[in-house]
C-alpha cells in the first residue's frame, strides 16, 4: 500500500524484512532498511560512506515479493513499497555460506598472529555465516607485501578483494597512488612502488579493511581488542574536533581509531589525529614535581608554588602574577584559571600566542551564530564554497575531505590563499597575498548586494560598485566570476581561516555570510580556528584582547614578576626566541604545569606535572561552537613497560601507581591558588557553568552527546574601520613573510611522536617562480635567509601556483623560524640567496 502523506507528498516506501515492517526514505537501500530494523545483513564491500559496489556478494537475501525476485544483493537495490524480503531464507543462508567458503579459499591461517583478530569482520562473518571445515583441496595464492610507510602495515595474503581500500583512497579521498592492480584472483592492492602513502587520510584504511591487510603499525602486537580499555574520544590536534575511539592498556595509549560523528567528521579522521597520540606515552614526560631542580612530591611543589606566588603578590601586588594558558587547555582548566585569576587578583590568563590570533578568533567567535554556522557534514552538501585564508589539507585536514565530498557532487570550490595550496579536489585558486583577501571579500559582498538591489529595482543596469581599496586589475574578472557563482548557487558556504588572514577578514567573511543568509536562507559560515579549544578560550577570556605578547612586554617592564604557565609552550610559537629567554630569566618565579616536556618545563623553578586528556578527560569546543566532552581512557601513571624497561615490573608492592602523582591541570591550579580545603568538594561543572552560562548544559547533557553553544544572533558587523587591508605591497623588492602550519611538523602534540618526526618531510620555504628566478633559485635548492637574529638555511620550494611577493615559511619544529625576530612583515630580496650546500 503506497504510503504518501497527502499533504507533503513525500514517498516513504514501506517494506517487510524478516516479517518486520519498516518505512524508509526513498532511495534507501534494502541493506540500510534492514539495519534500521536491527538486522545486520552480512557485508564486506558495502560501507555507508563508500556506498554500494556489488563486489563481495555477501549481502544476498531472498526477495519474495516485489519487482525483484530470488536471491539479490541487498546493497544494490532500493527499498520499494510492498517489497517482502527474507534474510533467513535457506537459499540465501546457503549462498552466503558459499561466498564465505570462496573468500576463505586463499585466506591464510593468520588469526593467531594477526592484529585484526578479535576485531575482524571476516572472522565474525565466517563464524556467523556457518562456514567451518575446509574442503578446498587446492593451494592458496600468496603475495609479496609492500612498504607503505611508517603508519600502516601491508599484508596482502589476507585480502578478500572487497575493494573498500581503493574506493576509499581514490573515490572518497581523491588520492592516486594506491589502487587495484592485476586481474582475476591475483588482484593486488598497493602502490606502483614501495613507499609511504601520500594521502594524509591513509590511516582510515586500517578501520575500513574488513581483514588484516592494513593494520596500525603504531599498535602492532600490543594488545587484543578485548585487552583494551576503549573509550569514545575526541581529537585535539586541530579545531575541527573529530570523534575518535581511544584505546589504552597498561597505562599507555595504544591506538586511536575513527568514530562516527554525524555532524563533524562522518566516518573518518586524518592521520595526524590517528597517529599523533605518542606524546601521551613519552618516557620523558614530566611525571615528578620539581622545586628548584630537585624532585619533590606534588603536595610539596604545590605548597612551594602557592607560597611563593602569595609572597610575590604581597610584595609587588597581585597583578605581578600572570597566567599563561593555551588553546589546548580544556574548558575545565580555562574556567578554573579564569576564576582564580579573578579571585586572586592575578593578571588574567593570556591564551593566544599573538595579538592578531586573539583578535581574529574573538571576532570569528562573536560573529558565528546559530543561523550562520555550518557543520562540517553540512558542508558536504554545499554547491559552491569560497574558502579564504585557508590551506585545508594542512590546517584542518578533515575539512579537505569534506570539501572533496562536495566536489564529488559537482560543487564549485574557490580557494583564496597565498600558499601553493594543493587538495584532493579541483578548485579555482585565487593566489593573492593575505592583505588582499579581506578587500576581495568586501568587494564580493558589495557586488552581490548591488545585484540584489538591482533585481529588486527591476532590470536596471548593474552598476559597478566602488572598490573597497586599490586592487590589482586582473582580480576583477575573478571576483566577478565568484559573484556570479554565488548568485547562481543554491547552498553556498564561506570558509574562513584565522591564521594568515588580516585582523578584519573574519568580520568580512561573516558580513558576506550574513548577506548570503538573507539571499539563500541557509547556514553558510565555517571558520577554522587556531587550536582545539580556541573557541572555548574566547568564551572564557577574562581580558579580551590579551595575548602572550602582552605578557612578555609586562615582564620586560617589570610589571610581572611571576608566571604560571599552564599547558602551554610559548617557545613553540613566540617568534623571537632570544627575547623570550631574556624575559623568562627576569622572572622571580617561573612555574610550569604541563604533561609535555617543553622548554618552559625545562627552565621552570617549579614544575607541576599534569594529566593528558586521556588520563583525565575534558571538554573542548570546536570551530563550530560544539561542546564535546570525553571521559578518561586510563588512570595515568608511567606506562607499565617503561617502569621496568621492558622486563617484569619490580616486585615491590605498593598502593602507589608509578608516576601516578599527577593531577588534572584544573585541580592543581585550584590548589596552587590556595583552595586546598575546597578541593574535594569542588564541582567543576558548577564552576564552568558559573564562568559561562552556556556551560550550564554540561550538567544535563551526558558526555556522549555534544551541543552547540552559539547565540541566536551574532555580533553586529563592526563599523568599517581603516585597516589598510587593501594596501598594496609597500616595497617592490621585498617579500611578505607568511608563517604557516603544515600537516606534520608544526602541530604541537603530534610533533612529539618519533614516527611522525621521521615521517614529516623536510620543511620547505615556498616562493613564486617569478620571485625565485631572479635569485637563481630552483625548486629544492638550499637557500640562506639572512636575519637580524642569525641566518636561516632551508630548502626552497618554487611554485607557480601561489601568490607572488610572498615567502611562505612553515612554523616547523626543525626550522628555527623563531630567529626571524619580531615577525618582520617583509624580507628584502637581498637577504635571500642560494646557499652553497647541495
Amino acid at each position, binding site marked *: 500500500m503506497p504510503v504518501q502523506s497527502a499533504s507533503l507528498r513525500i514517498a516513504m516506501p514501506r517494506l517487510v524484512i524478516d516479517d518486520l515492517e519498516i518505512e524508509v526514505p526513498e532511495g534507501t537501500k534494502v541493506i540500510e532498511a534492514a539495519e534500521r530494523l536491527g538486522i545486520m545483513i552480512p557485508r564486506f564491500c558495502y560501507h555507508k560512506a563508500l556506498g554500494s559496489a556489488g563486489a563481495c*556478494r555477501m549481502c544476498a537475501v531472498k526477495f519474495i515479493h516485489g519487482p525483484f525476485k530470488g536471491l539479490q544483493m541487498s546493497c544494490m537495490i532500493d527499498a520499494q513499497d510492498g517489497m517482502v524480503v527474507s534474510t533467513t531464507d535457506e537459499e540465501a543462508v546457503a549462498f552466503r555460506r*558459499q*561466498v564465505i567458503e*570462496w*573468500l576463505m579459499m586463499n585466506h591464510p591461517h593468520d588469526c593467531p598472529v594477526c592484529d585484526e583478530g578479535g576485531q575482524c569482520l571476516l572472522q565474525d562473518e565466517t563464524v556467523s555465516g556457518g562456514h567451518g571445515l575446509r574442503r578446498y*583441496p587446492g593451494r592458496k595464492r600468496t603475495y609479496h607485501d609492500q612498504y607503505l610507510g611508517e603508519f600502516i602495515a601491508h599484508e596482502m595474503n589476507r585480502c578478500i*578483494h572487497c575493494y573498500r581500500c581503493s574506493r576509499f583512497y581514490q573515490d572518497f579521498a581523491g588520492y592516486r597512488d594506491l589502487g587495484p592492480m592485476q*586481474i582475476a584472483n591475483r588482484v593486488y592492492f598497493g602502490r606502483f612502488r614501495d613507499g609511504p602513502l601520500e594521502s594524509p587520510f591513509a590511516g582510515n584504511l586500517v578501520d575500513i579493511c574488513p581483514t588484516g591487510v592494513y593494520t596500525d603499525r603504531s599498535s602492532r602486537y600490543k594488545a587484543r581488542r578485548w585487552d583494551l580499555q576503549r573509550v569514545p574520544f575526541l581529537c585535539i590536534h586541530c579545531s575541527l574536533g573529530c570523534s575518535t575511539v581511544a584505546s589504552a592498556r597498561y597505562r599507555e595509549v595504544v591506538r586511536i581509531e575513527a568514530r562516527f560523528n554525524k555532524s563533524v567528521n562522518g566516518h573518518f579522521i586524518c592521520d595526524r589525529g590517528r597517529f599523533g597520540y605518542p606524546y601521551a606515552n613519552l618516557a620523558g614526560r614530566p611525571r615528578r614535581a620539581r622545586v628548584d631542580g630537585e624532585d619533590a612530591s606534588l603536595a610539596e611543589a604545590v605548597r612551594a608554588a602557592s607560597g611563593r606566588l602569595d609572597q610575590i603578590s604581597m610584595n609587588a601586588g597581585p597583578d605581578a602574577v600572570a597566567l599563561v594558558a593555551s588553546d589546548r587547555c580544556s574548558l575545565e582548566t580555562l574556567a578554573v584559571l579564569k576564576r582564580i585569576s579573578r579571585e586572586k587578583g592575578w593578571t588574567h590568563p593570556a591564551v593566544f600566542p599573538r595579538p592578531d590570533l586573539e583578535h581574529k578568533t574573538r571576532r570569528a567567535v562573536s560573529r558565528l551564530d546559530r543561523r550562520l554556522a555550518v557543520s562540517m557534514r553540512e558542508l558536504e552538501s554545499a554547491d559552491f564554497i569560497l574558502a579564504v585564508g585557508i590551506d585545508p589539507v594542512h590546517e584542518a585536514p578533515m575539512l579537505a575531505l569534506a570539501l572533496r565530498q562536495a566536489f564529488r557532487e559537482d560543487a564549485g570550490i574557490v580557494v583564496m590563499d597565498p600558499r601553493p595550496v594543493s587538495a584532493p579536489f579541483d578548485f579555482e585558486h585565487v593566489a593573492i597575498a593575505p592583505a588582499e583577501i579581506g578587500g576581495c571579500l568586501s568587494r564580493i559582498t558589495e557586488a552581490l548586494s548591488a545585484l540584489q538591489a538591482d533585481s529588486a529595482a527591476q532590470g536596471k543596469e548593474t552598476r559597478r560598485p566602488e572598490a573597497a581599496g586599490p586592487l590589482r586589475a586582473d582580480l576583477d574578472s575573478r571576483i566577478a566570476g565568484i559573484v556570479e557563482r554565488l548568485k547562481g548557487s543554491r547552498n553556498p558556504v564561506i570558509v574562513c581561516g584565522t591564521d594568515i588572514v588580516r585582523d578584519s577578514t573574519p568580520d568580512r567573511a561573516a558580513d558576506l555570510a550574513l548577506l548570503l543568509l538573507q539571499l539563500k536562507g541557509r547556514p553558510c559560515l565555517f571558520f577554522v580556528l587556531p587550536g582545539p579549544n580556541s573557541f572555548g578560550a574566547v568564551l572564557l577570556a577574562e581580558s579580551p584582547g590579551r595575548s602572550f605578547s602582552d605578557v612578555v612586554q609586562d615582564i620586560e617592564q617589570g610589571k610581572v614578576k611571576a608566571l604560571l604557565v599552564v599547558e602551554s609552550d610559548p617557545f613553540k610559537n613566540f617568534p623571537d626566541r632570544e627575547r623570550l629567554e631574556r624575559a623568562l630569566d627576569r622572572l622571580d618565579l617561573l612555574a610550569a604545569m604541563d604533561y609535555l616536556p617543553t622548554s618552559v618545563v625545562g627552565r621552570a623553578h617549579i614544575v607541576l606535572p599534569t594529566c593528558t586528556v586521556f588520563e583525565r578527560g575534558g571538554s573542548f569546543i570546536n570551530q563550530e561552537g560544539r561542546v564535546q566532552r570525553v571521559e578518561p581512557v586510563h588512570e595515568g601513571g608511567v606506562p607499565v613497560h617503561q617502569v621496568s624497561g621492558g622486563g617484569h615490573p619490580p616486585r615491590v608492592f605498593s598502593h602507589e601507581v608509578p608516576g601516578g602523582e599527577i593531577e588534572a591541570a584544573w585541580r592543581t591550579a585550584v590548589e596552587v591558588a590556595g583552595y586546598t580545603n575546597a578541593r574535594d568538594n569542588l564541582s567543576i561543572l558548577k564552576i564552568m557553568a558559573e564562568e559561562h552560562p552556556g556551560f550550564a548544559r554540561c550538567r544535563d547533557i551526558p558526555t556522549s552527546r555534544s551541543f552547540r553553544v552559539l547565540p541566536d544572533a551574532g555580533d553586529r558587523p563592526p563599523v568599517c574601520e581603516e585597516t589598510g587591508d587593501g594596501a598594496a605591497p609597500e616595497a617592490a623588492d621585498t617579500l611578505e613573510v607568511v608563517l604557516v602550519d603544515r600537516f606534520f611538523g608544526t602541530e604541537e602534540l603530534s610533533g612529539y611522536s618519533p614516527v611522525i618526526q621521521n615521517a614529516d618531510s623536510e620543511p620547505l620555504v615556498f616562493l613564486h617562480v617569478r620571485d625565485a628566478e631572479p635569485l637563481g633559485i630552483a625548486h629544492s635548492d638550499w637557500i640562506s635567509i639572512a636575519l637580524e637574529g642569525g641566518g636561516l638555511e632551508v630548502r626552497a620550494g618554487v611554485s607557480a601556483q601561489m601568490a607572488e611577493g610572498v615567502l611562505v615559511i612553515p612554523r616547523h619544529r626543525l626550522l628555527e623560524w623563531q630567529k626571524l625576530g619580531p615577525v618582520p612583515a617583509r624580507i628584502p630580496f637581498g637577504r635571500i640567496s642560494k646557499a652553497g650546500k647541495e
Partner: protein
Amino acid sequence: MLPQVLFQNRKPRRIATMEEYCGSGGYRVLEDIARGKYSPADICRIVGEAGLRGRGGAGFPAATKWMSVPVDGAYPRYLAANADEMEPGTFKDRMLIHVDPHTLIEGMIIAGYAISASKAFFFIRPSYDSSAMILERELERARQAGYLGDNILGSDYSFDIILHRSGGRYICGEATALLNALMGKRPNPMKPPPYPTVKGLWNRPTVVNNVETLANLPHILRNGPEWYKGLARTKTGAGTKLFCISGKVNRPGCVELPIGTPLREIIEEHAGGMRAGSEFKACLPGGASTRYLTKDLLDVEMDFDSLSAVGHRLGTAAITVFDQKTCLVGVTLNLLQFFARESCGWCTPCREGLPYIRDLLWRIENGEGREEYIPMLRQMSRDVWNAYCALAPGAASPVESLLTFFEDEVREHIRLKKCPFSRPR
C-alpha cells in the same frame, strides 16, 4: 543458392573494395539519409520492425536499445562497435571485416545517426591487428569519399569513427566493461542503473553494438523490414546469421545462412559433415559460455527463440563440434581455465568460484577426482549465477551441462582414477 547479405561481396582471398561495395548498393542508404529521407526515429522504427536482434551473444533487440536513449538525453552521444570477440569458437567478426568492411562502416554511420551520435569507437581486440589495419585503411577511404567526417555528403550530420585497440581481455567484450576500457579505466563491468544508453562514456548516452549487428543495417534499410524477416527460416527470426563452425568437422569456417537453419544442416551440408571416424557427441551451439547441446537436438533450428525453447542459447552462433573421442571433462576443464584466467576479479563468485570449479575439474580429469566433487560442482555452478555480470554464469553453463548430460563420463573418470580418453595432441 542461399541468400548472402553480409557476405554478398565476398571475394576469394581478398577484401571487397569500397567500389565493389558501392557497386552492390553500398552507401546508398547513407546518401538517402544525407538527402533527408530518414529521421533518426525512422531508422529506429524500420530496424525495430525488421526484428534485428543483437549478434554479440545477448540477442537484445537493436532498435529497442537505441530507443532507450532518452529523447532529452545529454550530448554528445557515442556509439561503440564491439569487435572484441573473444568468446572461444567465435571468429565471425574477423571474417566480416576481412570480407566487406564497408558494410560495417556504413552500418555504424546509420546507427550513429539513429541515436544522434557524433563519434564512434571501434573497439578491436589485439589479436585482430590485421583487421585493425584493414579498417584504418578503409575508414580513411570512406573519409576521402565524404562518408565520414563533418557534414557527411553535404548534410548537417557529422560523424567519425576512431579505432581503439584493446589491451586484450575477454571481459572487455562486456558492454559496460568495454566503456570503462575506452575511458582508460580498469575494465570492470558497471551494473546499471544508470544504463549506458542514459549515462555511458563520460556520463553521456552511449550505445554498444556488435559489429555483425551493425553490418546488417544498410541491408535492412535498403531492402526493407519485410524482406529482412523473410530471410529467416523461423517465424520469429529475422535476417541471416554468420555461423562459425569449428571442431571435428571437415570444413571449419564461417558461413552466412538464414537464421533458424537447422543445426544438422549446418554441420552436414555447410561444414562438410563430421570427419572420418568422428561421430557427433555434443556441441557448444553458441560459443564457450553456452551449454553442451546433445545429439537428440541435432535438428534444432538455430535461432534465438527456438534454442531457448529447448533450454539452450544461440549466443554468438559459434558452433564447436565434439566427437566421441573427445573427453568432455577435458574440454570443460579447458574452458574453465579460460574463464578463470579472464575473470576481471571484481566479484567473489567469478574470482574465487571459477578457480575452485577449475581445480575440481582438474582433479577429476587427472585422476584425483572424488565422488563428492560432483554435488559440489553442481552447487557451485548454480551459485555463480549470483555474480556481478554474465561471465561467471556463462562459465557455469558447460559445467552444469556436463553434469546434466554426461555425468557418466565424469563418474568414469573418478572410478578409473584417470581420464579414459586419449589426450589431444
